[in-house]
């Protein structure tokens, strides 16, 4: 399995984990995160999850689970010779990051997750419906679904491996959400983001500090200055002795 990762040199790089149907560059570079980390004196390691971007993209749903994608992240850390990192995930990338904590707690120093609550979105909206909307322009998801606009734009985009995304949605949906964390954790959500339903419960289960960004939705939370102003000091905080 080839996993593509961009390495932005700098001390103590942060591992940045993107969400469903995105790429490391779209989620973390275009939104100013890599630049903000550089200004804070930090490097960044920005992988494309399997099924996405320049990484391998199997079409078998069994090739996708939070743990399998987390194992890819471990391989990326090993490849870069990084023993222990601060990790930030967004949306589906948050579930993968939490799976990484469960898999290898000694490798994660602090964790920021964003764009999630307690509801697994693929199962909630129906894997078959998500897959049909990915594959067929005549199929529309429930208009209330926050996935609907994403899938509508994906259908028009050449070069996206929609079968890999369909397999990813199916594979992720059959695994329980890893709603626990053994490292210092922060949860950041947009006030206007329905994907983060149950965020207060999620924060409690994770033992996480909860940050709610006013007026921000699932897309605009990512680029918000307030997100960076919350996460960067969290990553800069003294490391608790465990």
């Amino acid at each position, binding site marked *: 399995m080839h996993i593509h990762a961009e390495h932005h040199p700098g001390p103590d790089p942060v591992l940045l984990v993107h969400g469903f149907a995105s790429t490391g560059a*779209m989620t973390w570079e*275009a939104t100013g995160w890599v630049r903000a980390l550089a200004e804070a004196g930090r490097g960044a390691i920005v992988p494309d999850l399997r099924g996405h971007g320049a990484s391998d993209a199997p079409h078998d749903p069994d090739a996708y689970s939070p743990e399998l994608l987390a194992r890819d992240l471990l391989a990326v850390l090993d490849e870069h010779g990084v023993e222990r990192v601060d990790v930030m995930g967004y949306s589906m990338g948050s579930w993968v990051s939490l799976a990484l904590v469960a898999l290898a707690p000694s490798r994660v120093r602090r964790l920021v997750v964003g764009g999630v609550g307690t509801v697994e979105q693929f199962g909630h909206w129906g894997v078959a419906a998500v897959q049909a909307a990915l594959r067929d322009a005549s199929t529309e998801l429930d208009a209330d679904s926050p996935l609907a*606009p994403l899938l509508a734009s994906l259908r028009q985009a050449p070069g996206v491996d929609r079968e890999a995304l369909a397999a990813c949605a199916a594979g992720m949906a059959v695994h329980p959400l890893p709603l626990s964390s053994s490292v210092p954790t922060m949860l950041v959500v947009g006030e206007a983001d329905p994907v983060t339903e149950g965020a207060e419960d999620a924060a409690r289960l994770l033992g996480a500090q909860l940050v709610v960004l006013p007026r921000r939705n699932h*897309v605009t939370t990512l680029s918000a200055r307030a997100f960076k102003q919350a996460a960067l000091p969290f990553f800069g905080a003294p490391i608790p002795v465990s």
Partner: protein
Amino acid sequence: MAERTFDLPDLGEGLQEATVLEWLVAEGEHVERNAPLVEVETTKSAVELPSPQSGVVARFHVAEGEVLEVGAPLVTFTVEDEQAGIVGTVPVEEAPRRRVRLSLPED
């Protein structure tokens, strides 16, 4: 002293307009080249645009929450005279390979 105006750059993916979410500097403030300037939202993503040059921000041409067409004036800087008269655009961080995979047809 002179003024230099920058237009909203083509953000790729066939997008014609963007909504200004938040200015990351204030009018009258000095900003360094490549420092965060403005956050904009398209129908597909949210993007932080870096400043195209160092200088004092003279004025914004669009308020937060307003929609701006690609190529329309975004921001005007006050610059030294020798820098004036140059037509420029706000640089966009490109990630060519992966961005291409998600781009819409150009027509």
